[in-house]
Structure formats: C-alpha cells, structure tokens
C-alpha cells in the first residue's frame, strides 16, 4: 500500500520575545505520520499539544524547521513558488475551525465559491455555475440558487461550515486538512458535519486529517487516531482500538477524563497540567504527571510497535 502523504520527523520551533528575552517554543518535536487514500486520520490532544501546528505545517501555512513532507512521492519544498503553490493547494485544502472568520463577510457565497475556480483558470460562466451547484449539492445545501446569493452572516454556523467544505472540495482535492471543524458548532448539528466528512470520503475519495480535542467524534469518523502531547506523537493506532484499549498512560488519562454519561465514576486525582513547551521535561514529556514513572522515563522512548499500534512508552519496551 502506498501513501499519498508522508510526514517525516517534522519539527517546528516558534521564537517569541518577551521584553529583551527570546524564547524558543518547541511546538512540534519530531512528528511522523502517513496518510492513505480516502483515509480519515484524527489527531487528538489538549491545547498546546501541537496538533494545529502539525496541521498547519502540512498545509504549508508554516514551514518546518526540520523534517520532510512527501506528497504523492515527491518532497514538498519549504517555500512554495507561485506555480508550486497553485499545484499544492489544488490537492491539499484546509477547513478552519471558525467558519465565520474563514470567509470574507462582505462577499456572497457565490463569490466565495467562485474564487478557487477562477484561480484555477475556469472562465466559462456556465461551467462555473454548474460546478457551484454541484458542490452545494455535495454538501447538502439545496436549493443552490438561494444559497449562492447569501452572505455568510445570513447562514447558520452549520451552513457556513458546509460552505467552507464546498469551497475546499471545489478544486477536487485529494486531502482535506480539517482543523476542529465542529468545535464552534452546536451539539445538535455537530454530527451532521461529521456525517458530511464521511460522505465526502465515500463519494469523492478524499482523505482527511482531522484535528480535534473531541475523542468521541474522532472515534466516530476516523480510521486511525494519533494522540499528541507536548509536541510529540504518543500513541497511534486504529480508532476503535485506541478508544477501547488505550496503551499509553496519557491516552488512558485523556479517555478517563472525557465526559461519558454512562461512564463508571472512577476518580482521578492529582491530574497535573501539561508541561511548558519552552523548557519541556527531559525524556518522556508525560513523565512528571505519569503514575507509572520509572528511572527509565528520563530518556525519551521511541515509538514501540505493540500489536499494530505504536506507543511512546517504556512500559511497552520489548
């Protein structure tokens, strides 16, 4: 099986200045992942775990400090020139968290959806119109004529996010990077956007990298889940397996902390807080909070293979 996207040991460091001092924030410390055709991969973690940074590096909104991104067998350069960028964005699209700020508020839906087509050189009016109707149908906004003339503020949050998906599929991409697409939406419509992603995967063979902190939606739509902590991948595996039998102590904590109306009320005490990314702890980043900590944790463990899953924890050392 060949992968359509490979990310190899990507590192990203941000420098921030406070007064006269500069700090290096290690947002991403060596992330490696692969994506197959029409696969939905969810990246979960708490705020500051580097999941959005990873997505943005893949989407070329940031360039990595180290590492390599390989799309369809060829390395994506750190800085894209105009031609490369057009070619890259045709195949990789991004859907953002907040569907209101990701759209021009003074332009109608028609304009918002037309823009990518014009950039990709479509000029025929009829052709454009047909394409617009097609994508609106794909995202279940019908009748298309009504929605084309609306401004973003006239749409509900769910409808806006559908327009955002329509805009991203209009160039027939192979990969959509979705950054918490449901976190700003109401509970009652969250699942409709998740269902839409499943449908787009089914009908258009689009692969998704879905960044979320909501483990329940990750479990619902994804094939695989990657768990991130302090800029590192801690566990990777099939979605159902990760949720049913988490291996890494951090994944176990995350799952136990997740609200579950039918859950057993096991008490977790002294949960601690995520580490600073400016001076991350030596070795395993989770060791200051981990109840299984041993002397060995002071060296960073690699990702061990455990029955098809990958875990960064010495407990699973073979």
């Amino acid at each position, binding site marked *: 099986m060949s992968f359509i996207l490979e990310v190899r040991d990507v590192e990203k460091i941000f420098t921030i200045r406070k007064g006269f001092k500069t700090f290096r924030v290690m947002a991403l410390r060596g992330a490696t992942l692969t994506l197959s055709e029409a696969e939905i991969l969810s990246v979960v973690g708490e705020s500051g775990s580097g999941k959005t940074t990873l997505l943005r590096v893949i989407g070329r909104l940031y360039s990595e400090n180290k590492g390599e991104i390989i799309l369809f067998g060829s390395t994506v350069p750190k800085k894209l020139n105009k031609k490369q960028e057009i070619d890259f964005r045709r195949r990789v699209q991004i859907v953002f968290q907040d569907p209101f700020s990701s759209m021009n508020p003074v332009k109608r839906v028609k304009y918002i959806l037309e823009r990518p087509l014009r950039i990709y050189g479509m000029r025929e009016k009829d052709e454009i119109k047909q394409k617009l109707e097609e994508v609106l149908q794909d995202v279940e906004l019908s009748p298309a004529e009504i929605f084309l003339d609306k401004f973003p503020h006239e749409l509900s949050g769910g409808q806006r996010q559908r327009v955002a998906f329509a805009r991203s599929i209009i160039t027939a991409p192979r990969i959509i990077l979705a950054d918490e697409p449901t976190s700003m939406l109401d509970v009652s419509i969250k699942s409709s956007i998740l269902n839409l992603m499943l449908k787009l995967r089914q009908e258009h063979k689009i692969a998704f990298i879905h960044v979320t902190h909501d*483990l329940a939606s990750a479990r619902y739509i994804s094939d695989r889940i990657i768990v991130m902590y302090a800029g590192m991948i801690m566990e990777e595996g099939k979605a159902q397996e990760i949720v049913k039998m988490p291996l890494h102590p951090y994944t176990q904590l*995350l799952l136990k902390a997740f609200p579950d109306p039918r859950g057993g009320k096991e008490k977790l005490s002294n949960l601690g807080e995520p580490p600073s990314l400016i001076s991350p702890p030596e070795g395993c980043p989770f060791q200051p909070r981990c109840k299984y900590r041993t002397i060995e944790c002071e060296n960073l463990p690699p990702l061990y293979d455990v029955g098809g899953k990958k875990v960064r924890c010495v407990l699973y050392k073979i």
Partner: protein
Amino acid sequence: MSKEPLLEVKNLNAGYYKGKKFYHAVRNCSFVLYRNDFLGLAGESGCGKSTLALAMLRLLKAPGKILSGEIYLEKLNLLELPDEELRKRRWRDFSLVTQSSMNSLNPVLKIKDQMLDVYLEHSTDKSRERANQRLFEVMKLVNVDLKFLDSYPHQLSGGMRQRIVIAMALLFSPKLVVLDEPTTALDVVVQRSIIEQFQELFHKVMFSAILITHDISLLFEITKHIAIMYAGDIVEYGESGEVLEDPKHPYTKALLQAIPSISGELKEYKSIPGRPPDLSKPIVGCSYFDRCDYAFEKCQDVYPGAIRLSENGRWVKCHLYSK
C-alpha cells in the same frame, strides 16, 4: 434526599429588547430545585439557558428585561425584593460562577485583594484577620496553593483561575451556586479535575447547584436532575439517569441521538434538521413543532403544558403524553 424545595421558579418570562423588537429568550420557565440537589440545564446555544440563569438571580441588565414570573428562594420572592435587600443576599445566599472565568477576575488586582473585596463588602464581620482566615479556608477547599493569593490573574492557568472563581463563590457557603459554562474553555483533563473538585465540595459543603453547559454528556454524567431547554422553555425535567435511558420529549430523543459518545457500540449519529424558531416572533403551540417527527395538528395551535409522568417529579411538555 430530602425533597425540600430551595429555589422555585414559576412561569418566568424574560428577554431582550433590540430596537422595537423583543426577543423572548425565556418563555414560561418553571422548575424546582431541591436542597442539596444538583440540577443540569441543557440545550443548544441560543436556547435561553444563560438568560434563565441571569434572570433567576436578577442579574439581567438592560436591554434584557424580566416580563413576569415568580422566583422563590426559600419562600422569599427575589423579584419583589428591594435592590438593597437583594444586594445583601448576593454571595451570601446565592452566587454565580460565570462562563469565562478568564474575564470575570479583575486583571489589575491581586487574587487576594479581589476576594477580600467581596468578603468585606458582604460580611457583617469587618475584621480583616478573620477575612484572611476564611480566604485561606476556601483556597484549601478548592486545592489551590495559598501562595497564589498574591498573584495576578494573568499569572495563573485557566484551570487555576476557574478554581479561584469557584472558591470566591463559596466564600459565604451560599445555599445556591449557579455555574454558567464553568469549564467550556478548558481542556478535558483540566475540566475533569475541576468537576471532581466540585463534586467533592458538593458533598462536603452541602449546597445546591445549577450547572449550565452545552456539553450534554458531562451534564448527564454528573448531575442528579436535568432540565432540557428548547427555544426558551424547559421541555423535559427529570432524574438524569432516567432521562438518559428513557427520553420522552422528541427533542430530548433527537438530541441524545446527535451526540457522539465515547463508549458503547458505534452507531450512526443524526443531527436534528432545521433550526430553532425565531424568538422575536410569538410561538403559539409547541416550539419544537416544525422540527418534530411526531408532530400532529394540536401541536401547532395549543401550547403543551407540563405533564407529570411519575411520582418522582418527572415531567414533559409534549402533547404525545396528554391522555
């Protein structure tokens, strides 16, 4: 559990003026909160749950307005209480933990000064020494190190700030604490630690609490009773476990089918088609009528009153159960 009512809200109507239009955000809301009860208010954004919380504590400011209704806190009608009398009771009898604890603390005052400010203003005992002592007590209750009393809010993490706001709400051991989305901006692990803390306090300090959040999984997990709100009205009320296992109102049913769950068999989740009604227009019949799968003629024209379903106080506002 003693079934002695602490707070009784009867036919509360409130909303907001926007120009000449009136947005009727809370319609005919009635419910009872018992002593040492933990009630969850669930609903989508814009369903009026925050407005209800503000209105029942008489904190609704213009352009918001309470139109009618009665709110009894231990036989005392809060709506008829003179302002000065009400001010004395704030913090002492009831307190509110607001949505964004990030912004509810004064950024230029040390934590200690803010807490002392509240304490000395509302306490009959003006001794600074005893005030300090009480501060130490509540900080211990929420498990925050005393050294943070000398910090400014921006020096603390979100979880810490939320704990401090909860500590402030407990300064006078009030009978009622209303929590409006207390953990929404926090990560799941931090949320869990605050919730566990709160549950512990709940058993230790003995107060009643109302928790408002759109995180329905969390509500069902931790509350004793639950009230489901839709378009400004409470459409179903009952014990959390019962409502979860056997939802009666079509809206509650649909809502429970829409939320992905972390446990159990993986099934298809369906969202609720349509949108909530425009609250600036009058609603004659059932507010859920146009989205309901079970709707019949009566639903459009007749407002469904609360129908008691069982002895333990469960009720639903739906014509399907009126026989």
